């Protein structure tokens, strides 16, 4: 990622060590003006530390942070002009809602009447005008969250930072607030970096996502990039669900599992040796056993309303989760536990990763437009 790119915020090889732990290792990222970036990953992946380095609360051990052409790495937080919304909201408990929103403006020595105007404008924006004189503790969680947002936006921040902004809200409220934040962010073209561990939340709010794991960036991309073209098996399982099957690749398209069962893949691949196959449950098509494809047996069948989930056992010990839409006319389950079935998937649904978790692209050629029925099972004698 070069610095010459038309980015507004650049992280360049950002690293942070706490004692012997590498909390963040060599994170590079370029954020466009007005873009909403979501850092996503399990707890301890370094996403929060990265955000805190951008805010200035944590000093980086290495790398640079460049905002609008200026390196801000050594700047203390109070000079960075960023609006941050904390997971706990971090409202000032002894100040009224209006005083909370006014705080940043007072720090900027804005004249009193202009502060009053701006506070009123912000409270109108988050629909909290009637609560201006209340103390934060007398507000609901959702209202407190909006105060925190208004407080951060009041100062016209150069960057909006959101640290797990929805995690303390009721599940019912979460989607609504997520939409509100997203609309606000779009309408005001706020360059935003958000941190979350919830992939659904991240998918719903981001322009682009950064998946992190153990301090490193696994993949940066749009929702489609991550879902359709995962860079690692971790991304394939963390974004949505994937069946991941370990085996040994031989003959370009034969994957042999630990129990000796061999699967004929749709694509042909260069290379051989230990590999991992990732296939999404909704990309797998189930058919009666007399068709082509890979043979298996249904071990679980669950009706979930919009979808039906089947678990299919291949060979001795490998389970594939298969999800499909329920059919009209009440024929909800086509298969019962114990039924022999065959499974197949299109080439685009098949992701193969080598031993270093790097994706193996299928070789171009006749197979690229393959029909879904071309894979099959060969049981070693």
């Amino acid at each position, binding site marked *: 990622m070069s610095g010459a790119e038309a980015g507004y915020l650049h992280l360049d090889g950002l690293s942070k060590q706490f004692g012997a732990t590498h909390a963040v290792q060599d994170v590079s990222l370029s954020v466009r003006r007005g873009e909403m970036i979501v850092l996503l990953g399990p707890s301890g992946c370094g996403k929060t530390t990265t955000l805190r380095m951008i805010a200035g609360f944590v000093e980086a051990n290495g790398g640079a942070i460049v905002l609008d052409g200026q390196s801000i790495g050594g700047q*203390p937080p*109070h000079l960075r*002009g960023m609006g941050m919304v*904390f997971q*706990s909201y971090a409202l*000032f*408990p002894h100040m009224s809602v209006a005083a909370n929103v006014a*705080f*940043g403006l007072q720090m900027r020595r804005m004249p009193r009447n202009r502060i009053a105007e701006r506070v009123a404008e912000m409270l109108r924006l988050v629909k909290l005008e009637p609560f201006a004189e209340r103390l934060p503790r007398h507000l609901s969680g959702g209202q407190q969250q909006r105060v925190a947002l208004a407080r951060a936006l009041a100062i016209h921040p150069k960057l909006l930072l959101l640290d797990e902004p929805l995690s303390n809200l009721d599940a019912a409220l979460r989607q609504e607030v997520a939409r509100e934040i997203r609309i606000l962010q779009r309408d005001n073209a706020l360059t935003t970096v958000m941190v979350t561990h919830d992939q659904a939340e991240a998918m719903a709010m981001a322009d682009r996502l950064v998946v992190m794991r153990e301090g490193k960036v696994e993949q940066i991309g749009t929702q489609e990039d991550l879902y359709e073209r995962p860079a690692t098996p971790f991304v394939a399982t963390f974004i949505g669900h994937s069946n991941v099957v370990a085996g040994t690749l031989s003959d370009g398209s034969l994957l042999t599992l630990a129990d000796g069962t061999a699967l004929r893949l749709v694509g042909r691949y260069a290379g051989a040796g230990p590999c991992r196959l990732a296939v999404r449950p909704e990309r797998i098509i189930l058919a009666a056993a007399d068709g082509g494809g890979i043979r298996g047996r249904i071990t679980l069948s669950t009706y979930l309303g919009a979808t039906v989930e089947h678990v299919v056992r291949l060979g001795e010990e490998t389970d594939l989760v298969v999800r499909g839409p329920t059919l009209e006319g009440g024929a909800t389950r086509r298969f019962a536990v114990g039924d022999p079935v065959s499974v197949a998937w299109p080439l685009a649904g098949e992701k193969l990763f080598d031993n270093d978790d790097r994706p193996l692209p299928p070789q171009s050629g006749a197979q690229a437009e393959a029909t879904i029925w071309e894979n099959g099972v060969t049981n070693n004698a």
Partner: protein
Amino acid sequence: MGVLVLAGVVMIFLPLVLTLYLSFFDEKLIIFPPRGYTLHWYLAAIPHFGGALITSLEVAAIAVSLSLLIGVPAGIAIARRRFRGRGVVSTLLLAPLTVPGIALGLAIYVLAVAVEERTGAALAGSFVVLAGAHLLITIPWVVRLCVASLVNQDEAAEEAAASLGARPLVVLWRITLPSMRQGILAATLFAFIISFGELEMTLFLVGPGMTTLPIAVLEYLKYHIDPLISAMAVLQMLVIGVALTLLDRYVRLGGIVR
């Protein structure tokens, strides 16, 4: 269970009730039953112990204000900053709690005499040493309560203020200190109660014409046993009781004395 609770309540309150009862006896000695009841012991208590009471209040006032001046910043530093020697400072500031009052008093007295011999400064039995010793035993409480009040507070509020443009001193003044209000109040009252009731350490440090109230009461008891002492004890309990009631209104005592 109920019996134990009752026994506990009786054991705690019986001496208090008895003291209150005795303080109204119209007798020179404590004799049951008294000839009659009177309030004159209360009237006599003030002129008799007034000087000592004032000394006690002066010592407490100085110890409390200085321990706040030192203990509040120390508490903030210990709770919020990561600095070299933080553990040592924290241990040092809390250490006086672990030394028995008698030992502390003796040590301070010996030190004061030693310094006095070398320099000629009249230290032993001086007000400065007395107030300084009280400062020593009140600081641990102030530090402890301040640290406790900050540990329970969300540090993110201070970070939020910084991100909104507040310089570190502004954060301290507008966010940190207001959020410690209850802790500081509790520390003030605790320090006062500790200083006001201190006896063992102070025994070594009082001088002629400068006696604190607990010591004046002890002195009086050497030669008299009459209801005057009961009256004084009631007055003293009243002062401490008012302080504790105030304290309990602002902070949950149970949360601090664990």
